[in-house]
């Protein structure tokens, strides 16, 4: 259990706002941190890591005090047993991929574990490359496994999969889930990707303007349409195509494009980019696994 109770001045839009967070985070599970750009997500992770000091507050992790401004306690990052994936990766530019990982592992590092992680992210072929020779996504993958190498007790992931393509992202998401399950690492995951949050996290903190506006199960926030007579899908209008008196509206929902026929009234003020809700009266739904 992590108890957080902190306030810190932030330079948010409009005026200087406070990051002021009081919450508890369950151990051994993944907690997602979600919220608009500039909400204070990265700052929160850095405070937990001991890289940024709040003006005031306390952080308690599994009964141990990591920070308590009142009592002038502040554990240095080194003593916090954390793994941190930085939004900007922060790989060491003078070290090769292998050196980055070995440095993280330390002298008694488990060589085979490093190899396993490298295999996981499909980067075995790049162990002798310097970070500057890697693509954005490759750097991010190395940053991810570098944070895992030490098997930390608290994993702080700042959009760890944002630069990856779909296939890689889905794969690593699954791997991350397994690793977390196996090692039971308490994990905080900053993510904009709802499906990522949904699949990985059992707990969600929604930050806005430095404040927690929601905490609970992801399902509660994003809502789940259950199989009922009416299936609700949310999507986004791609195009409104006039077709005589009626219109065909292309709606994107996830990766799917659905063409809906609509009357003049339905499409009033509808334009590309609008969020819409589709109500589908279904009588059967079948499910088939795709290859790939």
């Amino acid at each position: 259990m992590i108890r957080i109770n902190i306030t810190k001045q932030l330079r948010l839009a409009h005026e200087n706002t406070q990051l002021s967070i009081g919450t508890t985070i369950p151990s051994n599970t993944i907690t997602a941190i979600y919220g608009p750009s500039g909400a204070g997500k990265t700052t929160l992770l850095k405070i937990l890591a001991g890289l940024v000091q709040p003006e005031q507050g306390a952080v308690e992790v599994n009964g141990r005090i990591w920070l308590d401004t009142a009592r002038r306690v502040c554990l240095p990052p080194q003593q916090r047993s954390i793994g941190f994936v930085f939004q900007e990766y922060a790989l060491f530019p003078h070290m090769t991929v292998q050196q980055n990982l070995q440095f993280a592992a330390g002298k008694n590092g488990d060589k085979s574990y490093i190899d396993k992680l490298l295999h996981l992210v499909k980067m075995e072929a790049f162990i002798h490359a310097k970070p500057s020779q890697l693509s954005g996504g490759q750097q991010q993958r190395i940053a991810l496994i570098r944070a895992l190498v030490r098997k930390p007790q608290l994993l702080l992931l700042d959009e760890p999969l944002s630069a990856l393509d779909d296939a890689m992202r889905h794969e690593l998401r699954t791997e991350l889930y397994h690793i977390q399950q196996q090692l039971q690492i308490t994990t905080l995951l900053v993510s904009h990707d709802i499906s990522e949050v949904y699949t990985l996290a059992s707990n969600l903190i929604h930050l806005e303007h430095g404040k927690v506006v929601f905490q609970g199960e992801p399902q509660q926030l994003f809502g789940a349409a259950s199989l009922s007579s009416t299936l609700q899908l949310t999507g986004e209008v791609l195009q409104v195509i006039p077709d005589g008196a009626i219109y065909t509206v292309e709606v994107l929902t996830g990766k799917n494009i659905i063409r809906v026929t609509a009357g003049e009234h339905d499409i009033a003020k509808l334009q590309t980019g609008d969020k819409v809700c589709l109500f589908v009266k279904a009588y059967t739904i079948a499910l088939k696994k795709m290859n790939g």
Partner: protein
Amino acid sequence: MSIDWQPFLLTLQLALATTLILFVIGIPLAAFLAFTRFRFKAIPEAIIGLPLVLPPSVLGFYLLLLLSPASVFGHWLDTWFNVRLLFTFWGLVAGSVIYSLPFMVQPVQAGLQSLPLSLRHASYTLGKSRWQTFIHVLLPNIKPSLITGIVLSFAHTIGEFGLVLMIGGNLPGKTQTASIAIYDEVESLNYATAHVYAAILLLFSFAILLLVYSIRKKLQGSITGL
């Protein structure tokens, strides 16, 4: 004309010893100045630059006063440690270290100050101490500045003579460096000998500098053992 090689050997020893010591004491000092939150750090920074503004032989004169057995400090050194620095090789080293300190400290400090904070942060979160971070992450990333510090200190020690002449006493084989030997030849109007000596010193230094710059990449890798 028979060439006396001893002053050259001595110069090399002096420059190496001075550079090595400057490396060991100058780099932590640079790190302190780069990272301290000390409000008045401009004061120690300015002080480190001060030996530069005195003419070397005047600085030498004050060192002479300081180190002389007649002075409190010189006496203390003598009685407690049985160390006499005047007119000895290690006295020259001490003087050169003081004089060349800013050449090592300032470039390294500038290099450290230019590094992004995220490097330190990343290393801390990996459980690395400040010291490990410094050695394995920060220093390797300021290699051009380290090379600059080393080259300036080394070259400057080779060329220094006012100070060396003053506290060394121009003792052949002990404190007579190449720069003094050349100076002596120029002063005594033996220009031909002076030309030869100067040419040797130049060639020798040129070779070293060229070596440093040519194998910079490899050297940079090995300075910090990585």
